[in-house]
């Protein structure tokens, strides 16, 4: 019986040990399943649930008549799932060869990420590269469709449009300014994958992407093309460092063309120097020189301080104020105020400036919009320089009227002359005609309307009696048109440096409006540092460009020629 007793003890010992072990395991199960439930659920979700982004289509950019300027087309990007690849190093080598990548870098890059399940190898490859990789048929290598920005018009309006980078984000120009509008909001879908990474039927929350809005510009691609062609011709002829051309519709403030050369191809922006990306129409400002003169005269007429026929003695070309001497290109004696502008006399303008006085000059420039941004939707717009009155010296009243001590952007200048073209109303500049939302709704930006700064009568006098004669009798003779009348003003500014003016670097400009009676367009052309043959006069360099632009765009705009006897009175 002692044996039986001991056997019973042994059986009990074994039974209770095993039961105790089972209870321990029960506690362990409770810990895993109930206490760590959240943790493991999270891990489970992480491995079978993937949120896949549904990219939003980037909006397009159109010209005013719906011609496509920027769009997005599907491109193929190549990725690798290192866990699914069989021979990582072999795969890396083959990919490097097929895609023209550095073999050593790629191998290192992949090996460092061999536990990941997704790495980009090369994005937006060419169709040939895509075909080559597809033919290699490598395990773990996949393709993903990505939108690529495409500019079907090539270099046309490139500095204005800007460009989008590899990831589709706008990096300059309108593409950058309207990034939020264009890019839209990506949606997502939730993908469930099994242990072999095969996607399972989702039936799960899904959010469609909100596609980006498209932008309709006021730019007319045809006019833009004309301006760029004419500027390119001038570029060839004068070999300047740059040239800008702006065409404005004075009544509406619509910018029909905004060209800045040298330009670039936004499809391959990285191949061009960064300098070419700049939109010189708004990003640069400079001293305008004589081209500013009509604005001062208009102000003087508006304030009743002078009449066009008032005469000024022009000191035979040399006028001394304190230590400063004004020169005219040709010595003049007595000139009417009109003739001061027509012949672009600095002495005459200096005297007019003294008559108008600092406050009125300052107010005049403020009214025309200098020293302030126009707030066009373009990144990096310069405000120009208009010193506050307390910084003006005693010379300022004579310098400012000839376009010195002030810096303006080409856009500001073209806009200021639109006030003269538009019977005294300074229009609000417009670059965007409409925004078409992803779902098709059209938003038209509200125009604030223009700002009245001159009487219509004064503006008319400026156009038809003074600026028209600049072309007919004065410095702007090369701007003459074959079928239409034109009013304009030349400018030849020495480039300002710290402490003085350059005698070799000039900015030649011409601003014109035609037909002079009722202008359909204001055209400004500025040629920066013309090189060839020491010729730099605005009347010689810039005026012919404006004329060629007008000849073509007035016909395109179907403006009836003037002075053509269309109907004979036969009774």
């Amino acid at each position, binding site marked *: *019986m002692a*044996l*039986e*007793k*001991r*056997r*019973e003890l*042994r*059986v009990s010992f*074994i*039974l209770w040990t*095993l*039961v105790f*072990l*089972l209870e*321990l*395991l*029960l506690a*362990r*199960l*409770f810990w*895993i*399943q*109930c206490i*760590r*439930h959240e*943790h*493991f*659920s999270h*891990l*489970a979700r992480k*491995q*079978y649930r993937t949120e896949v982004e549904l990219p939003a289509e980037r909006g397009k950019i159109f010209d005013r008549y719906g011609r496509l300027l920027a769009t997005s087309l599907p491109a193929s990007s190549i990725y690798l799932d290192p*866990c699914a690849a069989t021979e990582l190093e072999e795969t890396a080598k083959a990919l490097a060869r097929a895609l023209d990548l550095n073999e050593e870098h790629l191998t290192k890059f992949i090996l460092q990420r061999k*536990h990941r399940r997704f790495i980009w190898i090369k994005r937006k490859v060419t169709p040939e590269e895509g075909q080559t990789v597809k033919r290699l048929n490598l395990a773990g290598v996949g393709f993903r469709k990505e939108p690529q920005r495409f500019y079907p018009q090539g270099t046309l309006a490139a500095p204005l449009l800007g460009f989008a980078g590899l990831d589709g984000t706008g990096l300059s120009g309108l593409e950058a300014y309207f990034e939020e509008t264009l890019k839209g909001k990506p949606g997502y879908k939730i993908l*469930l994958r*099994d*242990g*072999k990474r095969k996607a*399972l039927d989702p039936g799960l929350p899904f959010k469609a992407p909100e596609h980006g809005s498209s932008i309709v510009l006021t730019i007319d691609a045809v006019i833009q093309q004309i301006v760029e062609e004419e500027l390119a011709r001038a570029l060839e002829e004068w070999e300047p460092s740059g040239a800008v051309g702006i065409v404005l519709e004075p009544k509406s403030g619509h910018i029909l063309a905004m060209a800045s050369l040298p330009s670039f191809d936004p499809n391959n922006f990285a191949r061009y120097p960064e300098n070419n990306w700049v939109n010189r129409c708004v990003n640069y400002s400079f001293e305008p020189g004589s081209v500013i003169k009509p604005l001062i005269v208009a102000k003087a007429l508006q304030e009743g301080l002078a009449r066009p026929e008032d005469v000024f003695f022009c000191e035979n070309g040399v006028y001394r104020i304190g230590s400063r001497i004004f020169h005219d290109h040709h010595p003049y004696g007595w000139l009417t105020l009109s003739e001061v502008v027509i012949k672009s006399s600095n002495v005459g303008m200096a005297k007019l400036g003294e008559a108008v006085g600092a406050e009125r000059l300052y107010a005049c420039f403020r009214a025309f919009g200098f020293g302030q941004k126009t707030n066009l939707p373009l990144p990096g717009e310069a405000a120009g320089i208009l010193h506050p009155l307390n910084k003006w010296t005693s010379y300022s009243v004579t310098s400012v009227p000839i376009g010195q001590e002030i810096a303006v952007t080409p856009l500001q200048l073209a806009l200021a002359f639109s006030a003269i073209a538009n019977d005294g109303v300074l229009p609000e500049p417009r670059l965007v005609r409409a925004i078409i939302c992803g779902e098709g709704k059209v938003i038209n930006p509200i125009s604030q309307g223009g700002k009245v700064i001159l009487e219509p009568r004064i503006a008319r006098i400026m156009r038809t009696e003074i600026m028209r004669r600049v072309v007919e009798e004065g410095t702007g003779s090369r701007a003459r048109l074959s079928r239409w009348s034109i009013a304009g003003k030349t400018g030849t500014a020495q480039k300002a440096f710290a402490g003085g003016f350059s005698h070799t670097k000039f900015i030649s400009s011409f601003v014109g409006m035609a037909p002079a009676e009722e202008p359909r367009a204001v055209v400004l052309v500025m040629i920066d540092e013309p090189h060839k043959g020491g010729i730099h006069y605005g009347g010689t360099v810039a005026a012919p460009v404006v004329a060629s632009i007008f000849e073509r765009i007035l016909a395109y705009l179907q403006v009836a020629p003037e002075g053509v006897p269309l109907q004979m009175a036969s009774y």
Partner: protein
Amino acid sequence: MEKERYGIIFSVTFLLALGIIMIFSTGSVDEEGPLASRLFLKHLSWMALSIGGLLAVSRIDYHFYQRHALKLLIAVFILLVIVLIPGVGYAAHGARRWLRAGPVGFQPSEFAKFALIIFFASFLTRRKERIKGFLATFLPAMLILALTAGLILKEPDLGTAGLICIVALVLFFVAGVRFSYLLGFGALSASLTYIILWPRFDYWQGRIQSFLNPWEDPQGGGYQIIQSLIALGRGGLGGVGFGASQQKLFFLPAARTDFLLAILGEEMGFLGTAFIVLLYTIFLYAGMSIARKAQDFFGFLLAFGFTFGIGLQAAINIAVVTASVPTKGLSLPFVSFGGSSLLFSMLSAGILLNISQRKAVVEDIPKWVGVQDVS
């Protein structure tokens, strides 16, 4: 012994039922597509065979095995040897464990586990009077055990070999073999194991490492155990619902065999796994009680051996699934998918039922048995 019989029938029935449910669920995800029926029908066929086996065996007087114990042992040796012959034995996952006849596979090691308990019970009964002897009892028993375990290790099937050794040693222990001998044998085999494993030290170190810290290499060595924990943890208290397991979708390897409990825990939650633990506890109590009240020493040893073997295998399987011990290739008795394992578990249960039906001869009843149970 009505209560014990009901305990066995109750626990085995529910374990089988849970097994059918879980294999139906995991079988619905097959590599060849959502063709649940193939695996499920295979399991059902084995189950029908096993139930038939259980019913038959429960009607055979268990002393029958005592007479044929030696033949069983010889059969074990023959089968364990031929499974090792390439071309005859069928290998999967780097281990030659199966004998195949068409679609039917058979694991000799499962048979060995079953037959060896019968043999040792018979062997120890014959030597009841010399149970403490070294040469008469201990040494031959150990030689037979070492030979069987060695053949199984050769497959290799470390889990089953280890399980057979532990069950045999515990059987010797309760039969009354000197504890000091067993301790000595334990120490000896431990050092032997160490020497045998030494050449593959890196491999074993890696396995232990991935057990101690599976998160170090979640895609490699730690993968299976992490997936098992994720399955259990995702289940929570009440489970994600029948058929809703995510982990069975090729995340958890061996989801319908050794790691079936993890999927059960995912779909039925802690309530499901706790119920499984409860069923094994009932089985243990009932089986142990049958052993205690057995008619004779052979019946006692047989009942104890089968009960302990199944209980221990279940405990080890649960421990593996909960990452409490390093991974072994052991299935969950009555529940996991696997023909031979199910068949021999059921035959063991059948023998237990037969032992419980034999009334104890009055003088054999130990004093510690309550009188009320004798009827």
